[in-house]
């Protein structure tokens, strides 16, 4: 077989990496190249481009190799998949990262890998790329390394030493889901590794608080990804898992990736349009958990364990709890303002500042660009109090068409069941 050239490898190994949603380059320590080397981080991430799928391109996101001994059914790189395979040398990834960085295409590197030979061997190769960039080339840009839960603690230690962020994907929300689709993965072991990383990040922070010269350990924290829609687990399970990861493991981010059809997909997976609306609702719910003071139990109910697709989760909550509304924007406390549909954190804080000097009116809301159709039924201001009937009318207007992008409409249900 002829050896693929660099472009052919990049084609295969970028393609293999695109199912990872994360591309954040924010939240790390501030660095620059004034004292040598190349690269900087300012704390805020930069998206250098956007692809037609609406996702940003911030990092060079590639796999070191897409050979893999694991056989996780949702994964395009699983051992039994017929996908084309390729393998970068660590030096090739280093060179590609630097070439792209110098031209200002990227903020840095997000490196992941299929498991070859053994978890430790693979992790060692991944770490080598990061170490070469940091030590030999004094690279000060952003590095995100995907770590392998089974890798030895020494290698995870090194990964955290060179990377800004490290991540382990939990992939699926429940142990049963994992047993079904990823038999080689083990939720308990993943959690154990996350716990080790969590303790090490905390230790690194404490050391740096004492001496700013202490080496940082993954200063941008750890993140993870869950695939949505590959198993029947409802949003309640997904959010409960996310909430646990945020609270117990102090994760910086949980990414949700709508399961999308992959080439050579296993027959055990649903053949559906990727549930993009569901993914979007999960991100909204995730935000409500982290910044709006909502708890998991408030977002879904036992009777309806999935988020509504037709309205956003905050609106859904408001519709279930009309007793809290209307909220008087000139009087209500911050916690309650945050629960008003259409009001974001920024606008809530502006309202709090403005109302110390000025009674808010409808005109003011327009200037703050509050989405009026959404918010008006739920708020009272100096010259507006919602009327019951008006609220009912507005609510009817709020419902958008229920169907999402129907990419695979012609596929009948029987195709998915595999029945002849």
């Amino acid at each position: 077989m002829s050896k693929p050239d660099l472009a052919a490898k990049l084609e295969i190994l970028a393609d293999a990496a695109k199912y990872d949603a994360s591309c954040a380059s924010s939240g790390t320590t501030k660095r620059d190249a004034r004292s040598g080397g190349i690269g900087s981080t300012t704390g805020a991430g930069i998206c250098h481009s956007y692809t037609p799928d609406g996702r940003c391109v911030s990092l060079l996101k590639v796999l070191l190799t897409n050979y893999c001994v694991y056989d996780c059914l949702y994964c395009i790189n699983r051992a039994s998949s017929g996908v084309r395979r390729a393998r970068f040398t660590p030096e090739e990834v280093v060179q590609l990262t630097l070439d792209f960085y110098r031209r200002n295409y990227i903020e840095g590197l997000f490196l992941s890998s299929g498991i070859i030979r053994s978890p430790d061997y693979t992790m060692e190769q991944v770490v080598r790329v990061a170490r070469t960039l940091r030590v030999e080339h004094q690279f000060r840009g952003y590095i995100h390394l995907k770590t392998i839960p089974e890798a030895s603690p020494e290698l995870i230690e090194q990964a955290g030493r060179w990377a800004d962020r490290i991540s382990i994907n939990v992939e699926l929300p429940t142990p049963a889901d994992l047993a079904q689709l990823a038999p080689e993965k083990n939720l308990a072991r993943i959690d154990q590794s996350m716990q080790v990383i969590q303790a090490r990040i905390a230790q690194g922070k404490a050391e740096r608080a004492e001496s700013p010269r202490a080496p940082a350990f993954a200063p941008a924290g750890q993140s993870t990804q869950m695939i949505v829609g590959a198993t029947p687990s409802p949003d309640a399970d997904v959010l409960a898992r996310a909430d646990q990861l945020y609270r117990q493991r102090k994760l910086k981010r949980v990414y949700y990736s709508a399961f999308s059809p992959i080439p050579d997909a296993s027959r055990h997976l649903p053949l559906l349009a990727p549930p993009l609306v569901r993914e979007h609702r999960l991100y909204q719910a995730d935000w409500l958990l982290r910044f709006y003071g909502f708890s998991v139990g408030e977002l879904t109910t036992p009777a309806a364990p999935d988020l509504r697709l037709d309205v956003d989760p905050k609106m859904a909550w408001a519709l279930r709890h009309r007793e809290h509304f209307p909220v008087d924007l000139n009087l209500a406390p911050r916690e309650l303002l945050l629960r008003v549909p259409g009001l974001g954190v920024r606008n809530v804080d502006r309202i709090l500042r403005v109302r110390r000097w000025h009674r808010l009116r409808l005109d003011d809301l327009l200037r703050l660009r509050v989405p009026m159709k959404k918010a008006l039924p739920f708020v009272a201001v100096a010259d507006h109090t919602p009327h019951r009937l008006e609220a009912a009318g507005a609510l009817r207007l709020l419902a958008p068409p229920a169907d999402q992008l129907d990419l695979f409409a012609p596929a009948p249900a029987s195709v998915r069941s595999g029945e002849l």
Partner: protein
Amino acid sequence: MEQITFAPTFAGWQRAARRALARGIAPEAVAWEELGDDQPSLGIFGEEADDSGVDVSAFRVPRSFVALAESVACHRDPRRWGLLYRALWRLTHGEPRLLDLAVDPDVHALEAMEKAVRREVHKMRAFVRFRAVAHEGAEWHVAWFEPEHHIVERNAPFFRDRFAGMRWSILTPDRCAHWDGEHLSITAGVPRSEAPSADAVEGLWRTYYGNIFNPARVKTRAMRKEMPKRYWKNLPETAIIPALLARAPVRVERMIAASDAQVVRPEEWELARPPAGADWDALRDAAHSCRACPLWHDATQTVFGEGPRPAGLMLLGEQPGDQEDRAGHAFVGPAGKLLDAALAEAGIERGGAYLTNVVKHFKWEPRGKRRMHRTPGEREARACRPWLEAELRIVQPRVVVCLGATAATAAFGPGVRVARDRGEFRPSPLAPHTLVTWHPSALLRAPDPDTQARQRAEFVADLRAALRRREETRAA
């Protein structure tokens, strides 16, 4: 009405505004007149006005206003100077809390300008694309950018700190920023033709861009919101967007077609119908005209099983490969050679076992000039199953060795994993003693020599165990 002429920079306006404020000129009474670049008295930062004698100590403004004004000064809207002065006037004439009032029309307008500038600063950091050129014997990185606002000076330190080790220039129609490794300099704007038009790495970058895009989730509105079209002409990657979008539906279709759960016309699929009561030769002949699944269409011929009948041992593969398809015999290609060697090592003569495949036609897709093997799906396996069952009835094996995942699935269903379940005898619908092991082609595809050596050893050991089991069960 008093006309105030000033250099259109924050510093220039600041001086002029201080003097106007000290003289108590109300905002309504001022007309702000920008000095052009061509007016000789001023350089870019140059200021000739004399500030002596102006006492502004009586006026206090919040620090946040200075930051706001510095940013708004970069905006292209000529009304910004008057707006800033009116805000300054109100702040110093009884409205010290003005900036808290986001709903005030002046504050609202200033904040909108500040936001536009901040966004453009950010977009410049994102969308500047350097091209490497040789200049005075060294590598120089040159970019062309068309900023919406006057942000080149404001943003230059960012690029200096990030690319301090490089030598670079950012050219724009307004101003150009240069870093020679030691000094940052600002010069007048240039036309686009001054900038280089290509870079060797851009091909790789476009390759990356085109492949990190997932065609199954097209959301162009989200893309255009964050990367408005006016930037596209200076971004090397956007040239391929139309092609990516045009090909997206086809690629998605191919993704689905390539999955096992493919969309098919039901009339193309049925179960194979072996003639009832036929002997082996009649079966093989009948199989040659099988049309139960569409694979016959692109395959050369049906490759039926071979070997002694009855036989105590059956080796079950996946499907014929490229060479098997041409030759009409099972296991004659590279994987077959490896199998032969392993069989010899295990002490099994090839003629001593019956060899066949789960699927009897070659499934492939063109890749260049080659016919690339594609793993058969559940549907092909199911359509072909009656042939296998007919073979089993005639061969009557006590031991079946499943080579690889497709054969293992035929025996034990979809839960089976070769890596986990190999090497163990279990009863299956195929035979009372069924063993799963590697497919020889998996050994050929092993990522590294160590893995290959380990898998090969396991493979031979499994074959040896199968031979032993055949002998043990012979008496019974």
